[in-house]
């Protein structure tokens, strides 16, 4: 498994595509977490199962946790859950790449 993360619009999808032609891609995992929360599904349990079932997946996501803790409980829960889900994916990955300005930095 591989993970590409970064701030919004930093080019993580493009880099993931370039470095992994033909792979099974899952883009914007943070948005997946948001919709799971809306559906009442535990994002961490879902992500854990996903990782076991897709060991070859290439996942991309935005980093969403580096702002002031939001006042709204739902937004707080989203950021926390998105972070935990990415920790889970990263633990399953051989490589994790953080992308900024289109440039990837291999952090695992």
């Amino acid at each position, binding site marked *: 498994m591989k993970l590409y993360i970064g701030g919004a619009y930093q080019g993580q999808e493009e880099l993931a595509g370039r470095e992994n032609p033909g792979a099974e891609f899952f883009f914007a995992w943070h948005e997946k977490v948001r919709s799971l929360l809306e559906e009442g599904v535990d994002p961490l349990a879902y992500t854990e199962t996903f990782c076991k079932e897709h060991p070859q997946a290439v996942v991309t996501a935005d980093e969403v946790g580096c702002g*002031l803790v939001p006042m709204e409980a739902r937004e*707080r829960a989203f950021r926390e859950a998105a972070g935990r889900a990415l920790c889970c994916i990263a633990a399953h990955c051989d490589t994790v790449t953080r992308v900024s300005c289109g440039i990837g930095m291999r952090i695992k």
Partner: protein
Amino acid sequence: MIILITGGSGSGKSALAESLVPRLAAGRRIYLATMAAGDRESLQRIGRHRRQRASLGMVTAERSCDLDGLEVPEDALVLLEDVPNWLAGEMFGGGDEARMLPALRNLAGRCRHLLLVTGDVFRDGGQYDAETESYLEALAAVNREAGALADAVCEAVCGIPVMLKGKLP
């Protein structure tokens, strides 16, 4: 050794800090909890952190401000979690933020190992009211001081330590 761990929400800072505890030789291992808990959300958070460190043999001290008043043996390891809550205690919980930097230096000098967990809350481009801005500025000042004091500084990213200074034990 002084270690500073920063990172965003849910980035795995606590788990990373706790993973370092068994690697550092110390007498008493003190978990210094600075969050003043009241609501259900913070109690849940505390519950998760308690489970995470159940096996680490740490004693918990709860103190959201005035850290100079904490008794710390010379051979102790202190894991302070976290700086943003400590600042909130000093600023909004009846403390005094002016004593934070001296207290930080004192604490660093009083124990054998100090592990500081802080937060990176500075990247959302938000414009806040004056009180919040002064909180952010004060937190950044403590983080900078801690970064200068620390032997090792890292950012937790998806649970991975990205080194900013020095090396982790």
